[in-house]
C-alpha cells in the first residue's frame, strides 16, 4: 500500500505541478496534441469516407485500413518517423503518428455508417428528385451520424494512447512523467503518471459518451 500513498504524495506535491516538466504543462500538451490531431484527422478522413460511402466505392480499402492500423506497432512508427527528416522538427513525429493512427477508425466507421443507410430510404430520396449532394448531406449523413460519432470517439481514445507512447520516442505529453519516472527508477512517479494518463483517457471517453447522450435523439440512432 505504501506505493499508493507515495504516488499520492507525488501527485499532490505542488512542486511537481509547476514548470516545463510539471503536470500542468504536460496535461496541456497532451490535451493540445489530442484536440489538434483529432481535428486534422477528421478533416482528412471524414470527407474521404463520406464521398467513398456515398459513391459506394473503395469499400475494401476503407474497411481493411483499420486492420492494417492494428498490426503496425505505434512505437515502431514513432521511432521510424524520428529517424527520418520529420524527426528534426520538434513534435513532428508525434503529430504525424497521431494522425496516422486516428485516421483508420474514423474512415472505417464513417464508411460503414454511410453504407449502412437503408437503401430504400436512399431510393425514396432519389425518387423525390434529390441530387447527389442533397442526398449526401440531407439523407445519408444524418442517418450515418451515430456511426461517424462512434468513429470519432474511438479515434480520440486512440489519440490519447498514442500521445502517451510518443513519450518513449521523446515526444511531449503526460507520458513524459512516466518515462521520466522510469529513468529516475521512481516507482511513485511512474504510478502517479500512469494514474494521470488513465484518468485523462477515461475522461475523454466520458466526454464523448456524454455528448452522445445529450445529442438529439436523431443522432443517437435509437430514436427513429
Amino acid at each position: 500500500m505504501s506505493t499508493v500513498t507515495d504516488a499520492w504524495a507525488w501527485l499532490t506535491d505542488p512542486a511537481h505541478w509547476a514548470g516545463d516538466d510539471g503536470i500542468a504543462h504536460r496535461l496541456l500538451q497532451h490535451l493540445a496534441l489530442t484536440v489538434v490531431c483529432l481535428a486534422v484527422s477528421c478533416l482528412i478522413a471524414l470527407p474521404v469516407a463520406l464521398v467513398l460511402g456515398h459513391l459506394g466505392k473503395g469499400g475494401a480499402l476503407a474497411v481493411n485500413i483499420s486492420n492494417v492500423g492494428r498490426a503496425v506497432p505505434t512505437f515502431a512508427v514513432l521511432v521510424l518517423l524520428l529517424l527520418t527528416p520529420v524527426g528534426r522538427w520538434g513534435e513532428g513525429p508525434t503529430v504525424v503518428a497521431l494522425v496516422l493512427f486516428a485516421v483508420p477508425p474514423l474512415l472505417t466507421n464513417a464508411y460503414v455508417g454511410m453504407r449502412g443507410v437503408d437503401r430504400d430510404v436512399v431510393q425514396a430520396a432519389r425518387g423525390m428528385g434529390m441530387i447527389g449532394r442533397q442526398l449526401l448531406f440531407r439523407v445519408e449523413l444524418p442517418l450515418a451520424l451515430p456511426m461517424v460519432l462512434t468513429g470519432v470517439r474511438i479515434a480520440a481514445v486512440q489519440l490519447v494512447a498514442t500521445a502517451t507512447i510518443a513519450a518513449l520516442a521523446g515526444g511531449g505529453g503526460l507520458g513524459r512523467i512516466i518515462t521520466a519516472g522510469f529513468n529516475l527508477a521512481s516507482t511513485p512517479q511512474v504510478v502517479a503518471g500512469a494514474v494521470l494518463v488513465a484518468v485523462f483517457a477515461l475522461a475523454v471517453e466520458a466526454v464523448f459518451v456524454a455528448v452522445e447522450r445529450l445529442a438529439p435523439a436523431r443522432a443517437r440512432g435509437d430514436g427513429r
Partner: protein
Amino acid sequence: MTGPPDDCLARNEWICGAYLSTRRHILLDAVLQHLQLTGLSVLIGLAVAVPLAVLARRWKGAAGPVLAVTTVLYTIPSLAMFSLLLPLYGLSATLVVAGLVLYSLTLLVRNILAGLRAVPEETRQAALGMGYGPARLLLTVELPLALPAAMAGLRIATVSAVSLVTIGAIVGFGGLGNLIYAGMNTYFKAQVLTASVLCVVIAVAADLLLLGLQRLLTPWTRTART
C-alpha cells in the same frame, strides 16, 4: 592503414543485408521473446475470458459489470497499464504478460459474449427439447456456434498483442520492441526498420494462421455459403 569499412552498416542505411547476417542471433532471440510474450498472454487471456463470457451470458446481472470493467481496462493506454502494474510485478516479463492479458481479455470477452448471445433461441430450445443438460448445451451447441465470433476476437486480440509487446521495451521485455528502443537511442536505422517489419510480419502470419485454424474448426460455415 585501412579506414573504417564502407558497408551499409557504416553508412547507416535503412535496408542493410550485412545487418541481417551479422545480427542474426539477436534478431532470432528478439523474435522468440516476442512470440513467447504474445502467445502466453493470449492463451491466459483466452483461459480467463471463456468462463467470464459464459458467466455473463448465464447471469444477466453479471453482463453489465463485466462489460463495464473491460471497457475501462481497454480505454487505459498501454504505457499507463504497464506502469500501473509496476508496483505488483517490478521490471519483469510477468508485468508485460499481465498487461497484455488484460487487453486480450477485454477483446475476447466482448466477442465471445456477442457470439453466445447470437445463438438462435430456437436452437437452444431444440437442444433442450432433445434432453440436453446445461453443460452439454453449452459445450456441444452454444460454444461451437459462438466459435466464429470468438475466433474473430482471438484474431484481433492476437494482432493487437503482437503490436503492444513492443511497449514492453520500457521494462526491458519488449521482444522486437527492445531492438527498436535500442536502435532509437543509437540512431541505428537498419535495426529499427528490420525490427518494425518483423513485427508486422509476425502479426500478419499469426492472423493468417488463426484464420486457417478457424476454417478447420468451423467447416459448417463454408458448406453453408456455397
